[in-house]
Every structure is written in C-alpha cells, then in structure tokens.
C-alpha cells in the first residue's frame, strides 16, 4: 500500500477549509501524513471541536453550589446530597438515524449510556426527544417504527428504563429527523472518574469490542483510491451490540470500584483519536500508541482506519503502572477484549506507531486547544417580520368547538404516546414512581428518600418564530414540568439542533436561542452542566426549525411527595395558578397550525420573575402535600390542559366542571386554545384550599378557583362540553391512527 500524497484537495474532501489546512501545516511545520490528516479532520470537525458554537456556549451559566462537573467532560455532574450525585447528558444521532433508523437510534442510546458510565455513574434512566416529518409523509411511518424500536432494542436490552421523552411531527423534519437521547446515572462522589491521561509511564488500555471499519469518516471514500479493494472497505453503518455494552458497563463499574485506574473515556465519535488525544489534553500529557495491539475485527485495516473507526462499545482506560493485571482480570471475566496499546508520556505529543514506524506525531495542544474557533456572522432573516405578523381577528371561528377540541387532543402532537413508550421498558430497576404519561417522570433513589424528576421539552415552532423567546420557553417549560411533579430544578443538559451555521440566519437563530436559554437558566438559577450541538440539519438547503431541546433534572427531597398531572378524586377543587398569565396568544400555537394551517405570529410572552416564583410555589405546595395534581398549560392552551388532567390518568377518565378563566369578551376558540407561559392547572381536596391560597399569596402567584373534579363531562361553562370517555377514546387512539400504525 503506497501512502497517497496529502493535497489541499484531499484536505477539502476531509471537510477542512484552505485556512484550516494551512493551520495544520503551520502547527506541524510540515505536510501532514494521510493518518494525521484524518486525525485533524475529525478533531477539527464541527462535531468534535465545536468551532462554530464554542464562543456562544460560553454564555450559559455553568456554575452553582451543586455542580461537581460542568461542561467539558463526558457528562455533567450535580450533587444531590448525602454523598450522592447524578451524572447526565443528552446526545443527538440525527443523521445516522435518518440513514438507518434502527441502528442509528440504537447506537445513539449506546453512546449516551457510555458517556454516563464513563464517569463512574450507574445509568438509571433515559429520555428520548424525537422529531419527524409530516405524519403522512411516505417515509415517516418507517422512520418512527425504526427509531422507536432501535431505542427500545438497545435500552431494554442493557436494562436502563426509558422513562419519558417527546415526539413531534412537522414538515420541516421531512428530510432531516431529530433523534436526541438523554441518560442519567447515579454516582457516589468518591467514585467519580474523569477522562484524564495523567502519570507519565502509566499504561493506556483498550477495552470492549474489536475495531472494524464501522462508520468511518466519509473521507475514506475520497482516500480510498490508494487501495484496490476499496469496494470492500466502504465505510459501513455502525451496528450496536447492547449485549456487549451491558458487559462493558458491568466490567467498568467493577473496575471503578478499585483504585487501579487514573482515567477513562469512551470511544465515541472519532473513536480512538478523540479518546486518546482528549485524555492527554486534559492532563497536559502526551502518549505513544501502538496500533498493532488494537484488537481488530477485520483484515488489513490501515492506521487511518484504525484511528477513525467509530466501532461501538469500546473504551480507553489509563491505569496505574503495574495494575494492568487487575484490569485484564475484570474484563476477561466479562468476556471482553482488553489490550495495553500504549503509555502516557510527558512531552505533550501524541505518537501513533504501526508496523514499527511512526504514522502520526502530533502535539496534543495543537490538535485540541489550538483547534479553530469561529465567530460566524449572524443576521436576522429578512423574512422574520413577515413571519411574525398575524391578525387573529381574521381567523375564521370553527363551527363546532368540541369537534376542534377533540381533533387537537387526538392529533399526533397531543395524542397518547403509549404506542411509543409501551415499547420501552420504563419500569426496570424498579425506581420509576411516575411512569410516562405525566409532565415529568419521577424516579426514587434507592437507599434514600430522594426522588429525581425528569422532563425534556422544546417547542420548535416558538423557536422558529422567535429563537430568543423560544429558547427561554424551552427552559421554562421543562423547569415547570419538573416543578409540577414537586421537584426543584437542579440542572440542565441540552441538544442544540440547527441548520447550516455558515448561513447568517442560522447563526442568528443559534445565537438568539442560546441567549434566551442562558437568560432563563440565570433567572431560575439552574446551571447547564453538559450538552451537545448538531449543525447542518438541512436537506436541499432547507433547514429545520431551530430545535434547542432542553432536558431538566429535578430533585425531590422526599420522593413520596411527588405530584402527577391528572385529577384523581371527585369533589377535589380545580384551580389555576398564574391566572394573570393568560392572554390571547395564538402565535405558534397548535390551534393555529392544526385548525388554520399556519405557523406564524410571536410566541407567548415570558415573565422570568414569575416563572421563578411559580417553580418555588409548586415545590412548596407539593412539599406540604397540598396538591392532588398539577399540570402546566402548554400546547393547546387551557382547554387541552384541562382535558389532559381529566383523561391521562392511567386507569380511566374523570369529568370536571370549571368556569372559563377568560373574560366573556374573548372569542371562545381563543379562550380555549390560546397558549401562554407560566400558568398551571391544579387540583386539591377542598380542605387544602385556604392553605394553598395563602401559600400562593406568599409567592405572589395569582391563583383562581375554577370549579370541581367529577361528573361524566369535561365542561367549560358556557364554552364547550364533551363526555370525558369520548375524549379519552379519541386521545388514546389518535397517535396510531394519525400514523397509520397498528395500535
């Protein structure tokens, strides 16, 4: 095999700009070898280097009394007291899932699980946030089926429950679906591990599956000519092996209970390359690695392929000198490959050897710290004003409000998602106290009274119409969902899904969304401890709605005091907290899209000071056991929130009779379906009324009593009325029906 010459053209095929190629020659003081080019190309890729997003990500608040590990590690870590902490992160696997939905989604789950147990944490729960094209798009059903079964196939097998998530459908995702997965793990403070390669002379150990030509950087195509058998060497889709990952999980946690190691990092994107160089970079060290010692699945792999392979279920470990034996013993017990592939050096250079020669020699800092950083130009799109203009008065009023109400509740956005979450094992590990179906999932932490509350949210219509406000809302809604369950929001992770950052309007969306999210996080004092950016979500130049998915982690001091979203007892009174937040807002509403076929206007206004007080009030009310239920007003407005409170109870429906919280003068369809931020529908036994009202007073929350739970009908006095069981049936069957799936 002859090394093919590295030219600017080849660099371009590797996605490196002219300037970037020049920079490589500068830092090396020579032309890179093919292997080195490959290494730079993946390390300086958007995915690994965050070159277009870094300067904006700095705007997030990342510190706080509970933060044990902020962004920059495999996962963020937040203290939950009593020597325990939670490690969590969210990852995107959008493009792979579009090409091969089952394997793409499955390996996405595998990746995020590794990010969490790499830190020493035992994963206890996952969430999935999904976006697909129109329900009637020819490919949507296939993609939904594949992605959902892929998440199930991997998560169920490894035994980590998928306890919640979200799933939306919109034309803008027809050619570019979003698959974001979140995992949270629990770890004792003293068992937290980080990805550092410190200690000159310490062995670098490869564990897990063998390396194949999986998912190698598309560039191998370009550089393929140098080998006759290039057809056979075609980069292949990554296939996940959850069984091997389960063994890897148990073996790693067993190893981490010893003190034989100094650092661990999973091999995710850019496998061996990113794990080795990033670990050295964090420790300010260097390393030598001998590729002949890497366990290989296929014949004749080149150094280029070995360094860029994205084979799954692999980890890189730096152990203490002389402790290799213990590592080997544990991984062999679990039938996993283990091989000492190199050692830590002190000269800050990464040296890769293969068949006795050095095929790459790169100063670690040059590759990591000196990676390019761009402040890309951003500009508000010309069309934005037109997009935001909306004259509600011009909208025709529906002939039959109840019909519209049922239509919204049974549409794919609001309808029961059990077709999805029944395929996920959401009970395994016996911690799930609130199963999928409420605003937030709640898990107990065994051995303590504590509970963890989880919600993932993003209304991308809002973000499209106003990325700044939409970003604020994503944070506020997820915090509200968690607070509705009675928890205190303690940490955020996010997945920022956007189009091509080289376009000024995309960069504007990105910057604005981050600034909105940051402002909301500041106001609610929740730090962002980890996250992920996915750019270039475009097909044929058409970008998706900006979709900054936010996952919120909440803490309940007493899991037994959690609250659910559905009414439970006849005779309970129904109240609306944040009643002063109601307004006529149709901008970006579900009603506007479904009933009038438009996505326009501006999202509902947000009052961050109110959100802060509301979250505190809800926690306090739950803590004092005053609430029977709490459900925030979101898509579909007051009427849909009320309907959800009546029909989402797992074992059936109940009616409720309430008065219209809007003034008479407001058009009834606007009163029912206007969307707002900061209002929550509560129910409680009559006996708790006074205590609840005075508590609301203490937090300066406007609260209105609306009516009572019970009866056969969901009844908004003088506006609309429908049999609860009829609404429930439509809601239960709507999802499968809309997608033409078997229920």
């Amino acid at each position, binding site marked *: 095999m002859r090394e093919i010459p590295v030219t600017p053209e080849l660099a371009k095929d590797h996605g490196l700009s002219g300037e970037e190629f020049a920079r490589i020659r500068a830092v090396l003081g020579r032309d890179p070898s093919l292997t080195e080019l490959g290494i730079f190309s993946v390390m300086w890729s958007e995915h690994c280097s965050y070159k277009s997003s870094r300067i904006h990500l700095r705007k997030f608040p990342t510190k706080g009394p509970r933060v044990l590990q902020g962004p920059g590690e495999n996962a963020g870590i937040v203290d939950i007291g009593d020597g325990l902490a939670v490690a969590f992160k969210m990852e995107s696997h959008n493009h792979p899932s579009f090409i091969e939905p089952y394997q793409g989604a499955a390996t996405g789950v595998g990746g995020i699980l590794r990010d969490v147990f790499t830190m020493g944490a035992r994963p206890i729960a996952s969430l999935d946030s999904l976006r697909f094209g129109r329900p009637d798009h020819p490919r949507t059903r296939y993609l939904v089926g594949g992605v959902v079964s892929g998440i199930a196939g991997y998560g169920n097998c490894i*035994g980590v429950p998928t306890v919640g998530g979200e799933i939306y459908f919109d034309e803008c995702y027809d050619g570019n679906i979003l698959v974001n997965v979140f995992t949270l793990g629990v770890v004792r403070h003293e068992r937290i591990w980080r990805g550092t390669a410190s200690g000159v002379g310490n062995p670098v150990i490869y564990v897990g599956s063998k390396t194949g030509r999986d998912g190698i950087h598309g560039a191998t195509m370009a550089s393929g000519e140098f080998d006759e058998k290039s057809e056979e060497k075609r980069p292949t889709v990554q296939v996940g092996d*959850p069984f091997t990952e389960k063994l890897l999980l148990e073996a790693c946690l067993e190893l981490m209970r010893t003190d034989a190691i100094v650092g661990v990092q999973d091999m995710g994107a850019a496998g061996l390359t990113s794990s080795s160089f990033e670990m050295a970079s964090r420790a300010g060290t260097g390393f030598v690695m001998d590729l002949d010692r890497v366990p290989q699945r296929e014949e004749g792999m080149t150094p280029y392929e070995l360094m860029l392979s994205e084979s799954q279920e692999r980890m890189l470990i730096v152990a203490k000198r002389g402790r290799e034996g213990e590592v080997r013993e544990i991984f062999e017990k679990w*039938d996993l490959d283990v091989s000492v592939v190199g050692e830590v050096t002190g000269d800050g250079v990464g040296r890769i050897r293969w068949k006795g020669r050095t095929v790459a020699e790169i100063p670690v800092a040059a590759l990591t710290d000196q990676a390019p950083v761009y402040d890309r130009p951003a500009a508000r799109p010309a069309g934005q004003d037109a997009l935001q203009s909306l004259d509600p008065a011009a909208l025709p009023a529906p002939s039959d409000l109840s019909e519209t109400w049922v239509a919204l509740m049974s549409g794919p956005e609001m309808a029961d998602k059990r077709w999805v979450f*029944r*395929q996920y094992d959401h009970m*395994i590990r016996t911690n799930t106290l609130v199963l999928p179906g409420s605003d937030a999932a709640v898990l*107990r932490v065994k051995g303590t009274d504590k509970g963890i509350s989880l919600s993932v949210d993003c209304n991308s219509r809002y973000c499209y119409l106003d990325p700044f406000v939409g970003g604020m809302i994503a944070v506020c809604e997820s915090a509200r969902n968690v607070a509705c369950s009675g928890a205190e929001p303690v940490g955020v992770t996010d997945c920022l899904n956007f189009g091509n950052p080289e376009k000024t309007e995309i960069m504007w969306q990105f910057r604005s969304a981050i600034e909105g999210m940051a402002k909301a996080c500041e106001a609610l004092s929740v730090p962002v401890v980890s996250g992920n950016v996915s750019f270039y979500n475009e097909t044929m130049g058409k970008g998706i709605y900006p979709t900054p998915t936010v996952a919120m982690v909440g803490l309940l001091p007493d899991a037994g005091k959690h609250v659910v979203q559905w009414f439970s007892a006849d005779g309970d009174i129904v109240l609306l907290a944040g009643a002063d937040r109601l307004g006529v807002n149709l901008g970006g509403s579900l009603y506007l899209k479904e009933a009038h076929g438009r996505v326009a206007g501006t999202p509902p206004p947000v009052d961050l000071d109110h959100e802060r007080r509301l979250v505190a009030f809800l926690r306090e009310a739950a803590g004092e056991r005053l609430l029977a239920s709490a459900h925030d007003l979101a898509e579909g407005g007051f009427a849909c929130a009320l309907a959800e409170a009546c029909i989402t109870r797992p074992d059936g429906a109940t009616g409720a009779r309430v008065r219209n919280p809007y003034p008479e003068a407001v058009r009834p369809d606007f009163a029912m379906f206007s969307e707002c931020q900061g209002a929550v529908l509560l129910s409680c036994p009559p006996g708790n009324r006074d205590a609840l009202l005075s508590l609301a007073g203490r937090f300066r929350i406007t609260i209105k009593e609306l009516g009572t739970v019970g009866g056969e009908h969901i009844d908004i006095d003088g506006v609309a009325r429908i049999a609860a069981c009829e609404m429930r049936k439509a809601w239960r069957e709507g999802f499968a029906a809309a997608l033409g799936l078997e229920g």
Partner: protein
Amino acid sequence: MKTAVLVFPGSNCDHDAYHALKHVVGVDAEFVWHKESALSGFEAVVIPGGFTYGDYLRTGAMAKLSPVMEAVRAFAAAGGPVIGICNGFQILLEAGLLPGAMIVNESLRFVCDYVHLRTETDRTPFTRGIPPGKVLKIPVAHYQGNYFADGDTLSALEAGGRVVFRYCDPSGEATPSANPNGSAGNIAGICNEAGNVLGMMPHPERCAEGVLGSADGRLLFDAMVSWLKERGR
C-alpha cells in the same frame, strides 16, 4: 432461609429480584454467577429477567448451556422451589425444565405495560395460599412472550393443572384483548409436573411495593416464604 438469584451475562432484572427479596420481603438473598456449578445452601432459586446473551439466536438458548443450569436441574429434581421470571422462564423452556417454547409477540413489538393475571392454582410454592381465581395486577416487559406448545402438550398442561397464570381482564375473564402477546390459551405462567418449578413472563419483582403501582407481586414471594417455613417443620 437463603435464596439464590442467578446472574448470567445480560441478566438485568437480577438487582430488582434481589431488592424485592432482601429489602421488601426480608429474606436472605445472594447473587450466583452462571459459572457456579453448585447451589448448596440455598432453599429457593430465582432465575431473573433480562437479555441473557443479548437474546441472540433465541431467548435463553445460550444461557441454558451455563454450568449453573445443571445445578438448577438437580435442585429442581430434589423438589426445591425454582421461579423463572421473563427471560428466566425462557431459559427454563430452552433447558427443557418446562415444556413449550416462546415465539415473538403477535404485535412484533416489545410490550411494557401492566396486565392482569388470573391465578389458576395454589399448588406451587409461589402461589400457595393465593386463592385460585384471584386477579393480580403485574407488569410485563418482553418481545418474545408468545407461549407456544403443541396440542398434546397444551392439553396435558391443562389436564395436569399446570397452567398457573392466565392473562385476563380486570374482572378475571381470559379474553383475547387481555392477551398482550398472543400466548396460547392466554398462558402467562406454567409449572412442572411436581409443581416446584414455575415459569412466568410477568414480573412480580416489579410490583412488590405499593409505591410502584401494585404490591401484588409480593404475594408470590410471601407464598414462597411460608411454603419454605412449612417444609422446614
């Protein structure tokens, strides 16, 4: 009184079974690695759920080859109580300790949900004292829980009173719509001729505490404890 919770590569309900036994029911429990070849000192054996060997080839197919399964065979032959839950049931089928086989759910989808079970017999150590006809609320979580056996085997099971649990509606009727996977005769659990080996797809260990939505699963473990106590005398 010590119970063994077997652990195979890919077992993932082992900790749940252990928790239910030790921390809820309060009996002594110990994990036993699949390479062990003896079960001495144990009075009952739990083969927990999971995806042993990834469910590759067939569920339970590779696990049945583990050394510990020979010990289970001997333990069962000596009349010791054995319960196989979900993947544990599949392993017992593959090992030939119970008749029949599992095929993929009729829906071709994994199903995780609460179902209702009608208790058909109190002859097993795990249903001792539970009145036949009693309806239990218990979760299932499987992709291959569609029980199949040929006609003769089925009639033998029915005739021998070896169908222990049937999927039913809340009122106790074993209707087709109450069947989550297509199992023959709505069968959710069966036992061997002696009655000491029980295999069931639903997960009693997941509903042994009220906070989890149902405590009905605890009845099976309590039954096991009193059965062992009686035998002890």
